[in-house]
């Protein structure tokens, strides 16, 4: 099963084992990673699961979908080129070792 590393704003890292096929948000929430709020439960409704994909992995993760792309303009923390909503990122074996950064604010 792929391992994903969530880096909190203070620099601490949480390494979690994610099931292939689940979404990144779920992997964070079910492992109690702070900073991924996911108020809507993963329906691309609330933009409170915003993450910055590490530069080394952004090509691998790919760009946001159309709805997500528009929503990312209104996240609480600033949008960056590597911004994604973690409820829209499917975890797969190809993402083993992925590092994502959690922004300061979600709501």
């Amino acid at each position, binding site marked *: 099963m792929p391992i994903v590393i969530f880096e909190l704003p203070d620099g601490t890292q949480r390494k979690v084992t994610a099931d292939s096929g689940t979404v990144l948000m779920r992997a964070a*929430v*079910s*492992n*109690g990673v*702070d900073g991924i709020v996911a*108020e*809507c*439960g993963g*329906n*691309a*409704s*609330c*933009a409170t699961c915003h993450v910055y994909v590490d530069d080394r992995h952004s090509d691998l993760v790919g760009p946001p979908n159309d*709805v997500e792309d*528009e*929503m990312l*303009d*209104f*996240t609480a923390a600033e949008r960056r080129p590597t911004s994604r909503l973690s409820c829209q990122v499917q975890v797969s074996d190809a993402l083993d070792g992925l590092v994502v950064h959690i922004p300061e604010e979600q709501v």
Partner: protein
Amino acid sequence: MSGTNAGVVVVGGGQAGFSVVQALRGAGYEGPVTVFADEPRLPYQRPPLSKKAHTEPEGPGVDLVPESFYRERDIDLRLGEYVAALDTAACAVTTGSGERVPYEHLVLATGARNRPLPVPGAELAGVHALRSLDDALTIGRALTTARDVVVVGGGFIGLELAQVAQAGGARVTVVELADRLLSRAVSPQLEEHLRERHERDGIRILTGTAIEQIEGKDGQVHQVVTGQGPLPADLVVYGIGATPRDELAREAGLAVDDGVIVDEQLRSVSDPRVFAVGDCARHPHPHADGLIRLESVQNAIDQGALVGRRIAGGAAGPYESLPWFWSDQGPVKLQIAGLRASTDEVRVVPGDSDTPERLAVYAFRDERLVAVETLNWPAEHLAARRLLQQNPPVSPADLAGSTLGALARARRRKEVRA
């Protein structure tokens, strides 16, 4: 009985109760924390229950967090245990099994219960309401064979379930007593679009129609008799509102009026050691004229978090979170930001030719934007949530020929330049 070691007792294991304990430990609270959750399973999310057909006996993976979350944070999660009585003089609760548990702070997060369907035949097999995961599984299993489904109540849950049933291949009729859908919750302008969309999907909608009785054959529902004649039915699902579970507070002598009455700190107006959060709390709000009670995930999360932080001794001002809400009804994503009550001007902006499914309804009061309803336009909803919390408020003139998304982007550019 009370004392600094008695800790926090949370009554209720739904979204609001969970939010309380998450915030307590998140803010560094080190005293004992006990949660009484009357269902014998880990606290779970309710919104997904009405948005698809659930059939897996082990549940659809809707747990809020795994069991380890509670264990690692030393949260005493009492599943399947309820609180039978509250002794505010002694600062203790008594559980259903007679155990007495003292508290320093008590948080009521007891939620709401469905209004029963007040017609003959409501007890027949095949007539269901939805609140718990067990309800969702019962309905999910019934939907695998149902051919004619009658949904009683054109509210959020009813319309979500109507789309689920329709997608599963059943013939679906929604019966609503009021003369429009969602009459207390959304504008007539939005309702018109929504109704048309559901009807285009093949859902039959009868508004202004009463249910007279439900008739069965061999104890199983067979048809629903309405003011407009009988409707064949092998499954009836009703969602006609909910009432707060405030009886513990009432029996303990706390002020209750369709919900536990709390102040702007979400503290019972009768007892400073007792808080109420989520569906069961009736509270003041800077955007409302009187006390309000909200049934939403946002309200449950934000109220729970505020009380958790306050008890932990962290900074927590009055409760003033912007209310927001969503309902996914098949292909329609409906979202609301702000409180729509008592608006005096409404403007409707449809999507363009590339996005014909979109719609935004802007509601103003005294020349200020106070609420925004959207269909299939989450970005506009998010822009609304940002702008409704910013100064200066948005005026009708600001929005002339524009959208909130465009306005929010323009304001942000201005900030960056300044």
